[in-house]
């Protein structure tokens, strides 16, 4: 029980890890210590999370602890740490203030365990994967990774939208930092994109989505007068549909940016520039799921905006289909997985859009397991082949890296949706909910499932089976990864295999107790805001089982097709690509979306920037330069004035004196008689004046 009081420490441990590794890492602490600090911090977070989640079960009996509020109906515990933006009450009496508050309920419990658990495994894996980095880079990596964990946990636990947004932005920042981790390297030689460019692309695309998030947040504040999540959700019932739709769509724009939906998905494939553990953690299991998480969190809002939900579902479905089609022809192992991630995120959004929020959360969890496993496995392969990432240069690795091989197979089967692995249950639940909403959505989802199975099996065969196509140099260093890397693979494989059993649909459960434990666990969250449409037991169980069988069939067909194309008749892909050259090109070049964006969005923007630069150069600098020229001209005038007028006056005085003296010099004739004349003249004048004036 006491663990619930330590809620705030969950993000704090990794933050401390960030501080320690960041400040002391590369220079003071040895490599091993850095690893222990980083992994230890996450482990502590996991343990506290576990304790808190377990304590949540008996939350109703909790004594009120300082700072903790218990809402027994919703199974929620809120812990307030302090005031952030005290704003008093609004005109309608609402408490507008924003506090630093964390809330734990079943939804955030699921996220917590997934984030900290999978995060811990990836941290351990990273100690092996990044072992060859120089100490400063090594410490920097783990510092950023811990910072990411802290931010993600803040996002998950945040009780009000601004706190969530802090985490939201924070994970975006860490994504940028970690994608651009190899800041001195090129990522794509063909397009001259460096790893730093990829990081920038991710951050900027995220930020575009964030505009939507902020606007949505502000719309809700304007409409409800508060930014506390529960406060908002309590009020959505009373808001007009238009407002709800607007806010929901705006928040969804933010989710598109974070969770890589159309049209803001373009950063995720290029995010593969970062180290593979980063791809596993951030771009598979955690950050990209933040959009799904927030959408689920705001479920009552969406439920009151049917138009927005439909939009979410359609965007999700189309994204799933679209990304899967691109993954069919990719040749970089990480790129295949990246597009696969986009596709699976589309599934989650589809689930949320049809109202199956707990299904979305379920798939989020299982996807974290098998996608992280896939990425870590890919990292293991890359590590074994000394950096090779092109699957055309792999093959036949099954004998050389057994652990990697076996775990990879499990993950592949899970993502394909093969019974009884976890992916089957979660994907099937989504398809069932989609079917209930609209058969068309189901169809899109089903086709995508088939494509998923196909390209994943293709990936498996090309990497692990068949003839060995890698270079001699790679063969020299070929080795299975160390235990620090294979143990997390194994753990994740187990989770990927059995993780689905918490969500066995009621149709095939052998006891009621086993039926949909996951959905039932999450029910209080979604019921609180309105009717949870998680399961409509309207349709007959038979239909449900029938659809399950169909999806299984599709999955198996996909695997079979993949096997045929790449193992039985390996010449077929090339033949098909030759016949459908245009289509192949379109898919291989990702539908030219990046180029399209470049022309439509970036080119005008660059032109604007250039225009602004030129304006600054000519107008602003022109004004400044003109001021300089004016000063120069003024100084010339001043000089001229000084030379001609002032000096002229002075010289004039001299000339005047000279002129007069020249005149007066004439008096000094040197002749005595002229002097005498002058004297006599003067006397004469005086005397005559006297004589004539005295008037005799």
């Amino acid at each position, binding site marked *: 029980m006491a663990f619930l009081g330590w809620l705030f420490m969950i993000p704090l441990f990794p933050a401390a890890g960030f501080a320690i590794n960041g400040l002391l890492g590369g220079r003071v602490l040895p490599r091993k210590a850095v690893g222990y600090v980083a992994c230890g911090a996450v482990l502590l977070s996991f343990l506290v999370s576990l304790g808190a989640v377990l304590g949540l079960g008996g939350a109703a009996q909790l004594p009120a602890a300082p700072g903790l509020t218990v809402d027994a109906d919703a199974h929620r515990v809120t812990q307030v740490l302090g005031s952030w933006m005290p704003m008093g009450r609004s005109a309608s009496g609402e408490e507008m203030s924003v506090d630093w508050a964390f809330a734990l309920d079943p939804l955030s419990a699921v996220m917590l365990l997934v984030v900290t658990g999978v995060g811990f495994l990836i941290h351990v894996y990273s100690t092996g994967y990044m072992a060859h980095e120089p100490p400063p880079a090594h410490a920097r990596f783990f510092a950023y990774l811990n910072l990411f964990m802290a931010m993600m946990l803040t996002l998950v636990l945040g009780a009000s939208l601004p706190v969530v947004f802090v985490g939201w932005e924070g994970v975006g920042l860490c994504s940028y930092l970690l994608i651009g981790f190899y800041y001195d390297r090129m990522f794509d030689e063909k397009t001259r994109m460096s790893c730093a460019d990829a990081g920038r692309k991710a951050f900027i695309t995220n930020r575009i989505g964030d505009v939507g998030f902020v606007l949505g947040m502000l719309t809700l504040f304007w409409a409800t007068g508060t930014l506390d999540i529960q406060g908002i959700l309590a009020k959505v019932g009373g808001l007009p549909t238009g407002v709800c739709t607007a806010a929901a769509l705006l928040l969804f724009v933010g989710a598109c940016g974070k969770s890589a939906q159309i049209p803001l998905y373009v950063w995720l494939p290029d995010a593969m520039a970062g180290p593979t553990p980063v791809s596993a953690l951030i771009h598979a299991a955690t950050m990209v799921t933040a959009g799904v998480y927030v959408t689920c969190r705001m479920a009552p809002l969406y439920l009151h905006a049917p138009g927005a939900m439909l939009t979410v579902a359609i965007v999700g479905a189309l994204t799933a289909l679209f990304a899967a089609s691109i993954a069919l022809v990719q040749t970089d192992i990480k790129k295949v997985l990246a597009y696969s991630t986009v596709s699976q995120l589309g599934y989650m959004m589809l689930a949320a859009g049809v109202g199956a929020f707990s299904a979305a959360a379920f798939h989020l969890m299982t996807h974290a397991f098998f996608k992280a496993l896939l990425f870590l496995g890919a990292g293991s392969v890359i590590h074994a082949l000394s950096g090779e990432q092109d699957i055309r240069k792999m093959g036949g690795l099954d004998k050389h890296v057994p652990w990697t091989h076996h775990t990879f197979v499990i993950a592949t089967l899970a993502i394909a949706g093969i019974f009884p692995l976890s992916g089957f249950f979660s994907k099937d639940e989504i398809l069932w909910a989609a079917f209930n909403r609209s058969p068309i959505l189901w169809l899109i989802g089903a086709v995508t499932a088939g494509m998923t199975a196909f390209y994943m099996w293709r990936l498996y065969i090309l990497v692990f089976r068949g003839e060995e196509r890698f270079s001699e140099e790679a063969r020299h260093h070929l080795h299975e990864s160390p235990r620090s890397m294979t143990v997390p693979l194994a753990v994740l494989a187990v989770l990927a295999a059995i993780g689905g059993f918490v969500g066995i649909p009621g149709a095939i459960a052998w006891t009621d107790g086993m039926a949909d434990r996951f959905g039932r666990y999450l029910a209080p969250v979604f019921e609180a805001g309105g009717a949870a449409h998680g399961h409509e037991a309207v349709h007959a169980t038979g239909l449900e089982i029938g659809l399950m069988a169909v999806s299984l069939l599709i999955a198996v067909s996909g695997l079979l097709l993949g096997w045929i194309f790449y193992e039985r008749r390996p010449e077929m892909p090339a033949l098909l690509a030759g016949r459908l050259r245009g289509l192949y090109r379109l898919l291989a070049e990702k539908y030219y979306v990046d180029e399209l964006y470049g022309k439509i969005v970036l080119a005008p923007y660059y032109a604007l920037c250039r225009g602004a630069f030129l304006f600054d150069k000519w107008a602003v600098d022109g004004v400044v330069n003109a001021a300089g020229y004016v000063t120069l001209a003024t100084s010339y005038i001043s000089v001229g004035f000084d030379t001609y007028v002032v000096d002229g006056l002075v010289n004039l005085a001299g000339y005047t004196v000279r002129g007069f003296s020249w005149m007066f010099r004439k008096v000094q004739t040197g002749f005595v008689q002229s002097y005498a004349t002058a004297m006599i*003249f003067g006397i004469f004048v005086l005397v005559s004046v006297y004589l004539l004036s005295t008037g005799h």
Partner: protein
Amino acid sequence: MEPAAVIFYILASIALLSAVMVIAGRNVVHSAIYLVLTFLCVAAVYILLRAEFVAAVQVLVYAGGIMVLFLFVIMLVNLKDLGAPGVRVHATVSGVLGASAIGLILYLYGRTPLVADAPMQAVQLRPEGGNLQAIGVALYSDFLLPFEIASVLLLVAMIGAIVLARQKY
């Protein structure tokens, strides 16, 4: 018209005429001679004015001493050139000045009666011993100091003249 007045006017005219000749003549020696004549006429005027001693002194000193000095120097200087003086600016000016001065005098004289003409006590004292004695008495009593100074002055002038005119060997 009394004869003294007539004589005075004649003497005055001669004096003026010879004075004009002094300054108008080409020859320096002629100028000197005319100057002597002027002195003599002035001496005669003195006698008319009952200053007999002064007249004697005038003739003695001026005509006898100073003119001799003049003539000596004229001879020493040995003038050959008699450069005709051209019309010079200041000569013209002086001429004009002189003419206007004379004009002014005559004009003024014509306008108002002079104070000098005011009748006075016609007490004509003929001092004892005549003019000479009177001057002697005055010279040695009231004017003793100027008398002595005059002698010193003459001494100084003499020395000065000697020094200035010295031949420098």
